[in-house]
């Protein structure tokens, strides 16, 4: 097809003595480097194309409500507060923070999933039916949810996420992701209170020693 062959390989014709053989150079080009280059470029393009397919994560924030009456109230039994500190530090407490800070517990990003699941199951176990529940159930039913009866069970479960100023964006997204992974329906991203921040800092300082 594309090869020009000036048969230089087989110099089988015998010439008489004294007749100088004309050197026949092959016109065949070695294609191997070209193939190398071609595939190198292909790999480059393959890598650059697949890398640019990011996904997006939805984040809905609540409106800042100054009016106390309109603020959402959270049942103490169903609340789990997670605080994020520096160097991937993570702390949590259930319900309200005790004054002596005895329920303030350090954890890691790996452990937090089980803590969330355990808390969620606890809330579901202690659930009792109230009239307010029916609306939630009906909503779920209307949406075509198969498990509409369970729609209400975790309604008191709220995770409060409080990153301090030294937590990274990755930490925040990781915890928000954990909410999706564990199907936590209600969660909030709130600023850390000075008391909590002090506890976080104190624990971090004592861990360093």
């Amino acid at each position, binding site marked *: 097809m594309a090869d020009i062959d000036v048969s230089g390989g087989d110099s089988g014709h015998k010439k008489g003595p004294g007749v100088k053989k004309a050197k026949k150079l092959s016109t065949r080009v070695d294609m191997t480097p070209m193939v190398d280059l071609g595939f190198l470029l*292909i790999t480059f393009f*393959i890598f650059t194309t697949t890398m640019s*397919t990011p996904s*997006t994560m939805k984040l809905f924030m609540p409106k800042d409500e100054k009016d106390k009456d309109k603020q959402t109230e959270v049942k103490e039994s169903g609340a789990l507060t997670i605080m994020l500190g520096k160097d991937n530090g993570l702390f949590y407490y259930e319900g309200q923070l005790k004054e002596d800070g005895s329920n303030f517990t350090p954890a890691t990003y790996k452990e937090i999933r089980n803590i969330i*699941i355990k808390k969620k199951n606890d809330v579901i176990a202690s659930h009792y039916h109230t009239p307010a529940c029916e609306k939630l159930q009906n909503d779920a039913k209307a949406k075509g949810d198969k498990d509409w009866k369970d729609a209400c069970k975790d309604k008191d479960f709220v995770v409060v996420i409080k990153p301090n*100023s030294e937590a990274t964006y990755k*930490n925040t*997204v990781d915890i928000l*992701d954990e909410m999706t992974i564990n199907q936590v329906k209600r969660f909030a991203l709130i*600023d850390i209170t000075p008391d909590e921040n002090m506890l976080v800092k104190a624990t971090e300082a004592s861990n360093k020693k």
Partner: protein
Amino acid sequence: MPSVKIPKKSTATDMTPFVDVAFLILSFFMLATKFKPPAPVTINTPHSVSADKLKEENAVLIEFDSVGRVYFTMNVKKSEDDGLKMDLIKQVNDNRKLGLTDAEMSNFVRYTTIGSPFAQVKTLLDLPKDERTKVKQTGIPVDSTNNELTTWIGAAKLAFQGQQVFYMIKGDNNATYPTFKGVIDALKANDELKYKLITDPKSAPPGTALYTKRLQSGTKGEE
């Protein structure tokens, strides 16, 4: 004795078809690749299990890098909609008395990414596009005392009036929380409460509630 002659065959194969194929694939990839728009900085986004597709049209993109410099970009649907970008920069110009000339404003329309405080916007827009991408910008201030991003978002909201706008937030792994909070506060100040965080996809960990849900519904998580 007659010996059977084994013809000597060359082991060198003809590479030409191979080259043909290689370059065919190469040209395919070159044509199919959509190059990323010139990003002011490299941002390594965190991973998440979300699988929603990224929408690049009618979007306001807010990026922040590892040291907390914030960049603002406006993406429109078609190039005919460039008037919207003009509306935005005019709005900002009037609001903040930047004193931009028409040439500077059309410079903005060509390349909307801005990452400088208002005081430096005029000098920045004086530069041609190629040089603008090279300039090290200090980022739009998002502190609680001076949140200039609020003005940018407010102007974008006005420019996009009557259309659905997507607010994309693209942050770096190592950026600290206050930067993210500053961005959210700026959006909240404009009554915008729904955002999309740009992340790298990862699969749901087995055994979790989300994993079971996705198995049952048979989707990959796109909603």
